[in-house]
């Protein structure tokens, strides 16, 4: 019998992405779709779309989805999960959304140990509004609102969200991955799968920070953008697992 190596995930709708060439959202969407398919969670899942380029995630994932106001996805997810504790809830947020306007919401949802999963796309700028400086913009990185490069003396230092949230007691699993090459993409998928499993086991808040490219707003060709991600972004935002309580949990034996 011939087994296909790769099939289109069932929950990925047959619609063309609106994302720019080289944008990380397409890959990240697909990974989320594959994991939900593989875990058989489609009919138990409620997604929360956040403001940013990825707000239209509901065009691409065949799931029940609520759209949240800018930054408020973790609060919306909290409301959903409190009503439907046996459903699978995830937010999909960008860095402007999660690390700037929604900082309070993400920190407190993590602190409360809300049992949902956050997919956090860090592309070091505001994509949807046209490439302005984000809390995650690297020192020296040029954006439309840091035209001479981010000056840390004036604009301060980037926020390292995975590290910040990992010091809290609420989260069960916090990791940072990247999707700049096939090997990294496979690792990213494993992390997403693990984060979803933490939720399934009821271990509490889980987040996968995904370093992704934004070639259009970075003013780079897609390949150059991936190289820049590998060379510059990972240097500032080291990949790795920052928190993992699954191993300590009694239910891990399941």
């Amino acid at each position, binding site marked *: 019998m011939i087994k296909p190596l790769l099939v289109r995930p069932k929950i990925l709708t047959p619609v063309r992405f609106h994302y720019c060439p080289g944008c990380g959202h397409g890959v990240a969407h697909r990974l989320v779709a594959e994991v939900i398919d593989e875990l058989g969670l*489609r*009919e*138990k*899942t*409620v997604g*929360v*779309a956040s403001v940013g380029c990825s*707000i239209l995630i*509901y065009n691409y994932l*065949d*799931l*029940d*989805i*609520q*759209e*949240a*106001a800018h930054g*408020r996805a*973790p*609060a*919306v*997810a*909290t*409301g*959903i*999960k*409190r*009503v*439907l504790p046996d*459903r*699978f809830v995830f937010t999909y947020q960008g860095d402007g959304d999660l690390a700037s306007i929604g900082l*309070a*919401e993400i*920190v*407190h949802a993590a602190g409360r140990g809300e049992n949902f999963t956050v997919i956090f796309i860090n592309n070091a700028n505001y994509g949807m509004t046209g490439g302005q400086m984000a809390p995650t913009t690297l020192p020296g990185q040029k954006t439309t609102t840091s035209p001479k490069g981010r000056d840390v003396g004036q604009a301060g230092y980037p926020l390292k969200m995975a590290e910040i949230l990992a010091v809290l007691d609420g989260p069960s699993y916090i990791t940072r991955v990247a999707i700049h090459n096939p090997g990294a993409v496979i690792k990213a998928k494993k992390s997403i799968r693990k984060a979803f499993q933490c939720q399934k086991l009821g271990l509490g808040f889980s987040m996968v920070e995904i370093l992704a490219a934004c070639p259009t707003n970075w003013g780079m060709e897609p390949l150059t953008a991936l190289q820049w991600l590998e060379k510059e972004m990972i240097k500032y935002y080291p990949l790795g697992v920052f928190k993992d309580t699954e191993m300590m949990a009694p239910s891990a034996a399941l």
Partner: protein
Amino acid sequence: MDQVMLKGNEAIGEAALRAGCRYYFGYPITPQSELMEYLARRLPEVGGTFLQAESELAAVNMVYGAAGAGGRAMTSSSGPGISLKQEGISFLASAELPCVIVNVMRGGPGLGTIQPSQGDYTQATRGGGHGDYRLPVLSPVSIQEMVDLVYNSFDMAEQYRTPVILLTDGVLGQMMEPVLLPEEITHEYMKPWITDGCQHRPRRLIKTLYLDSGELESHNLHLQAKFKRLSAKEVRFEGYHLEDAEVLIIAFGICARVGRTAVDHLREKGLRVGLFRPVTLWPFPSASLKEAAERVRHLVTVEMNAGQMLEDVRLALPGREIGFYGRMGGIVVSALEIEVEIMRIMGGNGG
């Protein structure tokens, strides 16, 4: 039916519970904190969820999530907190999610005071947040009516798929009165739009983004049609001594309660004074007010603000001269002040 002595804020909490509310998200602010304190104790007793949010923004967005997931949810606050909730309220209105939002008004603008006022009338009745929307706004005059209107609020919210505002103030929130509490009045509404995992059905979306202008206009027209339906069906008011009134006091909430005492005193003096009280501040009972005003010589609006409802009264009664008496800063209008004002209007010959 239980008769109990309850503080206004607690009465709202107990009534919400008995109206089937099982999810409360809020943030402490005076003079409404007893409401959340009460539900923090009571909701777990009935298997509900109480969650103290990190901010008003988070609280109202938790309500958004809970309502979208099919839960009967509520939040409450006072002036400054309600302003913070406006972002979420605009989203709730656009996404057509039912919930109840309580505003126990304090004096503003800014932090103002923790004393009562009616300064949020305009904010409440004009939607309050960005975009074109309106919300039903109910204004009680007693703790008993607070309880009754809480039941109505949850029904209206689910029937019309809209947030409903219960607009009250620090006096009613803080005072105690005996109230009759019905055991439980819970109406179940079909919710074929909630997002709870698309088992055996196509997926559903709860959203407010319409990038296509035509689509957004259609959505706005749909909302406006709903507001029109609401305006036609849900108008409420109360009249007191309207039959032979020569002077009509128009007031809502605590001012109407004080106004009623003023009417009684003035009637004892032989003055023909009546009171018109909108129970729904939006939709405003314009037609009924017009009818009530036809036979009276003088009209005066009494409010604990600079004359916010006065604008709606003027819209209802074009061409009429309308007096205004108001206090601000957390000062409660007294019956005596109203009586002096009415006698002044009537030419000082009230004796």
